[in-house]
């Protein structure tokens, strides 16, 4: 067989690459029939297992802390921080009549080492960090499909293509890792890691609940902001190293955009920081407990404006539409990642979607009550039984509320991307420097004066707080109403021809 293009020898894969390819193939051969047969139960079991696993870890960590506190054995330090002996743990377990103490004591003995606990927690964060982009990408494709009157992925995994991103992942691992001939090879290869690592580090400082935080750092907000800022370097280095004019244009746009939008973003974030008096995200979150009227966005008009300013800047900081100039498909091919392929390309996307989650999480933590539900906490059940506490946990505060709010803002970002047109780079900079920055400055000053003149408890403060809370609820109601209307009419949006060809119709 003769081909019109120059013949290329097949790529010689290294042993590691061959191993990964073989692994992916085996996983596909084994998993595909199972996934095809029982898609729903697999999904639900996975969710249930992850919830149970995180619960188990948190529970065991708590028990270890309790034992360590009750057995004041501080002078003896032993190898790897294993200060308690198995016998001491056994005594505590028998005292508190814990079932299956015989097996649990050895587990607890291992878990008392901070290193082991940190490894488990980091694994958990890594899984969360990987699951969020996988599903955000799938969801983005579904939302894009619905908005454009098509279906989006429907085949992989059968139920609305829920396994599409996993299938894509397998494909991307197998793809050839191309480096363009004229590229600066080391920088080209290293750039995706500069995107991936900061996004992951931001997750380490992000609290999901009062106690659900890996490292309760005093400067958590600054750390997360710093990580978001460092991510730009990957775009610039990757774009420059590609030695492609589209990539360099994308990188330069990103640099402009990030450097200018970081300023109003930081100023807007100072407003809730001033309200709570701390940079610690757990403290800021806890300061907003007690119902929707205590959320920082509703404290005064300036705080509400700051919330809107922050949201706009967060769109710019993770290159989402209408600020997606660095990868503008219609003008720059794919912007800074034009030359990337395979898994390195996927890493840029993982970082982007993880950053979207992080900015949503910051928005929720700082302005919209963090992990607290809108219901007033005075309604919480008084009973101290585990089920009453569990119900309180679901209805009033907890990681579920936090994830729910974050996912809502993630959805708003997807929604905006497929609705708004992209704006020009000069418009982006004009909007930042001449509109958003002055607004942010006035907001900061106004908030400071408001805190000085109308402290919490004064009549003006209370009236404005109530009015703003009502406005906020109206906004939320409208958003939920639109979403519900869209969901109710989802078949109408697609069209009857498509519905008739759905699998299972």
């Amino acid at each position, binding site marked *: 067989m003769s081909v019109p293009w120059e013949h290329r020898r097949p790529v010689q894969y290294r042993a590691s690459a061959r191993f990964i390819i073989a692994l992916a193939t085996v996983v596909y051969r084994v998993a595909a029939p199972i996934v095809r047969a029982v898609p729903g139960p697999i999904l639900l079991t996975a969710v249930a297992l992850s919830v149970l696993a995180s619960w188990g870890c948190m529970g065991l960590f708590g028990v270890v802390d309790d034992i360590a506190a009750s057995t004041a054995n501080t002078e003896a330090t032993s190898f790897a921080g294993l200060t308690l002996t198995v016998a001491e743990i056994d005594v505590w377990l028998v005292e508190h009549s814990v079932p299956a103490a015989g097996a649990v004591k050895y587990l607890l003995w291992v878990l008392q080492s901070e*290193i082991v606990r940190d490894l488990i927690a980091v694994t958990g964060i890594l899984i969360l960090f990987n699951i969020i982009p996988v599903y955000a990408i799938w969801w983005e494709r579904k939302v894009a499909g619905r908005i454009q009157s098509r279906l989006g992925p429907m085949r992989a995994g*059968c139920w609305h293509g829920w396994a599409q991103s996993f299938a894509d992942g397998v494909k991307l691992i197998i793809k050839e890792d191309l480096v363009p001939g004229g590229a600066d090879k*080391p920088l080209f290869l290293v750039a995706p890691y500069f995107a991936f690592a900061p996004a992951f580090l931001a997750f380490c400082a992000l609290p999901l609940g009062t106690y659900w935080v890996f490292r309760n750092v005093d400067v958590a907000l600054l750390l997360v902001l710093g*990580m978001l800022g460092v991510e*730009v370097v990957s775009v*610039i280095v990757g774009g420059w190293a590609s030695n492609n004019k589209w990539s360099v244009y994308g990188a330069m746009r990103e*640099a402009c955009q990030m450097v200018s939008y970081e300023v109003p973003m930081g100023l807007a974030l100072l407003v809730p920081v001033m309200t709570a008096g701390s940079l610690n995200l757990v403290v800021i979150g806890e300061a907003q407990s007690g119902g929707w009227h205590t959320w920082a966005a509703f404290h005064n008009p300036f705080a509400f404006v700051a919330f809107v300013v922050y949201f706009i800047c967060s769109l710019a900081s993770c290159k989402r539409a209408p600020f997606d100039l660095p990868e503008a498909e219609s003008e720059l091919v794919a912007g800074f990642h034009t030359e990337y392929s395979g898994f390195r390309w996927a890493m840029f996307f993982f970082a982007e979607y993880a950053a979207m989650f992080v900015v949503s999480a910051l928005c929720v933590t700082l302005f919209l009550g963090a992990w607290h539900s809108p219901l007033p906490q*005075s309604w919480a059940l008084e009973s101290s039984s585990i089920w009453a506490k569990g119900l*309180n946990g679901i209805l009033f505060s907890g990681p*579920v509320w936090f994830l729910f709010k974050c996912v809502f803002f993630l959805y708003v970002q997807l929604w905006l991307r497929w609705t708004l047109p992209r704006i020009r780079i000069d418009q982006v900079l004009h909007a930042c420097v001449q509109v958003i920055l002055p607004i942010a400055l006035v907001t900061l000053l106004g908030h400071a004066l408001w805190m000085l003149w109308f402290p919490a408890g004064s009549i003006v403060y209370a009236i404005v707080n109530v009015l703003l809370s009502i406005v906020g609820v109206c906004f939320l109601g409208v958003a939920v109403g639109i979403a519900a209307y869209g969901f109710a009419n989802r078949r109408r949006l697609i069209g009857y021809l498509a519905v008739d060809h759905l699998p299972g119709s």
Partner: protein
Amino acid sequence: MQTCSTYSRTVGWTTACGRRAVSAAALIVLLTLCAPVLAQDAPTPGQEAPSLALDAPAEVPAATSDSPVSAVLEAAFFYGFALVVIVSALAICISKNIVRMAVWLFITLGSVAVLYFLLAAYFIATIQLIVYAGGTLVLLIFGVMLTSKSPWARFEIKRGELLAAVVVSVLLAVALIGTLMGTEWPQDQPAEPHAVATLGTELLTTYLAPFEVASVLLLAVMIGAAYLARQEK
């Protein structure tokens, strides 16, 4: 379609209504499973919220550096990142390509931030990341991209420049090493738990005048830059 035949069969077996019921039941089971999980985080009205206020004594975790493994790990991290700092700082000087220099500088600054983290100086570490790694460096690369004539511009050092650089470096090294040897370093100082709050209070009370002078200086620089950059009318 062959791929989804099993799915179609399943659908034929359970009606859409049945599937909804199964999903609802699964959701209820899931929420029940979640209940004890969330119980740990639930507020109880009678109970007081966890004291997280600034004036409350911070829960400084028990020093884990006592155990040999932790100490070894900490030392390994310190020497590892110190090595990275030195190697990447040397690489800045050795490499000829300006963008590679910037990337090496990025690695140096990041590793110095890690060293600050190891010393429990979180505020300085994060500020290092935001201001130097995230801000200054981006501006630097941006300036290079806008001003460089060709993408592969290289720096060639003249002999005189090399001589001057060596003299300056040796003088600096002598001065630094002399200072380091002559200083009494405080050992085993516990990390300040609320360094940010203390720092902010000090900046706005004791050191208000220098702080304001620095702000005015920055403002003057900004106005000057804007004046230089504006278009001639």
